[in-house]
């Protein structure tokens, strides 16, 4: 037990829509430099949970604390200012601007220069923008219009943008959705490497179990709005409840049968 508060502490988050509980009493925490995966089948409440963390949605009850400070019910832009970067399931970038300009917008915002009417934006923190793009392997694309990038490159650009405010925490919603298998591995490897180097906590949701089990330090599993399992990839993999949720009764039976057979 450490005295310092964890990077992210989620306590008893609950949200219901018209009497249906989308998320019920979810609690977990995340340390700096740790990569935590949030998984669960469709409709488990992952997105709702995720949106309550990044400010897109307000919980009915419960709290989200970042380094001990309550962020519950704050707007996305306020949470970003507290040091949380994020990427979207479907990439959200500034399509008519170049790759560098996309990063520069985030740097401008971080530098609190949004209402600067007279400065030169093209020269704004060009060096830092370049470094961030190099970091995600997009250095050669800086002058490309964002609208003509391939999907995988957009994801990498989003990562660079998310890193622009030197975040303590990265929230990544389905970071590898829509990417080719090789790109997925590349992106997650890159993310993990950056997170460890800069000691950034990463929380991501993901459908691709290969990605999850290969890159997550820890996994939490949601089903029907409640947290049903938490632990290392190996622990979660072995959790029968998780298997039941994910694989269905038949497959669970298969697994037990196989275990029985090997015994």
């Amino acid at each position, binding site marked *: 037990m450490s005295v310092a508060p964890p990077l992210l502490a989620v306590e008893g988050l609950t949200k219901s829509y018209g009497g249906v509980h989308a998320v019920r009493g979810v609690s977990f925490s995340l340390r700096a430099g740790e990569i935590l995966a949030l998984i669960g089948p469709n409709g488990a409440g992952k997105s709702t949970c995720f949106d309550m963390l990044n400010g897109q949605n307000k919980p009915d009850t419960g709290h989200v604390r970042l380094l001990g400070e309550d962020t519950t019910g704050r707007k996305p832009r*306020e949470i970003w200012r507290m040091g949380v970067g994020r990427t979207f399931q479907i990439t*959200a*970038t*500034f399509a*008519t*601007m170049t790759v560098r300009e996309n990063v520069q917008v985030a740097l401008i*915002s971080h530098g609190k220069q*949004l209402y600067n009417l*007279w400065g030169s934006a*093209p020269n704004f923190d060009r060096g830092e923008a370049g470094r961030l793009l190099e970091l995600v392997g997009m250095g050669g694309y800086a002058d490309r219009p964002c609208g003509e990038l391939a999907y995988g490159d957009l994801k990498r650009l989003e990562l660079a943008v998310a890193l622009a405010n030197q975040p303590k925490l990265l929230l990544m919603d389905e970071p590898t959705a829509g990417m080719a298998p090789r790109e997925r591995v590349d992106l997650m490897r890159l993310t993990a490497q950056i997170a460890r180097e800069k000691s950034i906590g990463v929380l991501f949701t993901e459908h691709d179990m290969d990605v999850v089990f290969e890159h997550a330090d820890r996994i939490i599993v949601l089903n029907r709005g409640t947290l049903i399992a938490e632990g290392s990839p190996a622990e979660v993999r072995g959790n029968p409840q998780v298997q039941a949720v994910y694989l269905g009764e038949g497959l669970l039976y298969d697994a037990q049968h196989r275990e029985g057979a090997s015994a």
Partner: protein
Amino acid sequence: MAFYVVQFLTGLASAASLFLVASGLSIIFGVTRIVNFAHGAFYMIGAYVAFTLTERLSGAFGFWGAIVIAAFAVALIGVLVEMVLLRRIYHAPELFQLLATFGLTLMVEDLVVLIWGPDDLVGRRAPGFKGAIDFFGQNIPSYDLFLIVLGPVVLGILWLLFQRTRWGVLVRAATQDRDMVAALGVNQKWLFTSVFAVGVFLAALGGALQIPRDAVHHAMDLRIIVEVFVVVVIGGLGSIIGAFVAAVLVSELNAFGILIFPKISIILVFLVMAAVLIVRPWGLFGRPEAPARKTPGLTVNPWRPLTSNERLASLAAFVIAATLPLFAGNYALTVGSEIAIFVIFAVSLHFLMSVGGLASFGHAAYFGLGAYGVAFLAKMAGLPMIVCLLLGPLLGCMGAAVFGFFAVQLSGVYFAMLTLAFAQIVWSIAFQWVSVTGGDNGILGVWPSSWAASPSHFYWLALGVAALVTIALRAMVFSPFGYALRATRDSLLRSEAVGINAKRIQWTAFVIAGTTAGIGGALFAYLKGSVFPDNLGISLSVDALVMVLLGGVETVSGAVIGAIVYKALNIWLVSQTDLSKLVLGGFIVLIVVVFPKGIVGMLEMLAQRRRKTSPPGSPLLAKPIESAE
């Protein structure tokens, strides 16, 4: 009591004609996303054609047959317009279709006078519905009763059409998600054409049915088009039920409103729309618009500051323009001043529209407020010109600060319509508050001080301010604020996620644009020596939109060219011919077809193509190779 019942029924009858036209507009917008400015023109042609037919064909069958034939005939014209003109520009930037239909409207207004003559035409009364029915001592025209029944019947038919036919299902699907329907392999072309035909049919029918009540004349279109837009927006875009409810709401509020405030009609619909949009941003029955999926590769021409060569060229152009007084006469200089002022006006709207992605349909409000600001200061406070020029635009700034706050809470067409409503409210204040504003007779005698009185001095003043404003706004595009503004335009979601308070950025942009427009208005007041409610009017707002679209909405400085070309052409045509609307409309339609990216947009594309052909491996072509590394 009987009086109130009859007044209610009278309101319903007014609602019926409004609904017919509005439903057509709503259907067209819902599916094609075309802001069909020509809808009023189709309404008017419907009335003219029906007039001609009802005068030729005799008897009851002749009359009703003529109404229906007229509607079908105009629907055919609509199909022609859709196939020949609109089909070419569905992929043009948003609102470009507005420009095309605006051009058409201009042409039609002159054409009907050429074909049918200048006189007001009064057609026959409807056979079988000529008289009135007595209701406890009050007379209800039987034709009103016919219209009261017709409204719900048309609503019912449309409902059946949408609920019970495959076509209707496709239309509804397309209203909700155009891309989806396209993806399902539906022939989108013919879906759009048929939808346009149905919409135009309803407009023409609405026009034809006015024959027994109204006079047919060449300004019918303007009388109805704005009101119909308002009804559609109050009801919620694409919602037929909404259009019906809104038509009834507006008509009844008017019918009973005039009993208490006889002068309310002039502004009522706009007050209702502003109230509805502030409380329900998507209209009564509308749904939040799904954010339009940007077609990738559509706008891939990144903006960049001018190179030093281009800067020199601009400076040279400015110097040449500044030498105009050395060889041009007073008239040319005054026209030059007017064009320079419209450059200011156009670049201010361009900043909001192209950089901020907020297309205002009421930008003239701030131009006019600047003009009125000057007039108040000069005439009431008696301040010298230079002080008035500096302080006058502040009225535009204040107006923009107040209205902009509410307007930026909305987006897309709803934003456009709320700005329109605010502009109309300001206009009607200027129009009605005779003791302060002089009403429609305006404020006269706002002439420049002697230092700026000569045409050449005023021209240099206007040119200098226009250059400063253009440079300042251009600099802002490439300032950190400009980047933030473009960011909010491209993706609200992402901009919020990088800590940008999008609404406040947009509000700031609105105030900047409004103040700049006010500067233009202030100069305009001195150029003309007078201020009129026209300076805040819809037609001036539309002029500004046309200038921006003509220049190219996706460019950084297209508005400058757009303003010069449009204004110079307009002044020249009005001076040369009484058919200026026909020629100007034709020119706009031509530009739309030939230059779907606007004049400057097209020039840029040509320049880019030339660049691309010389060095091998353009970014677009190189892309697949590099990403496959």
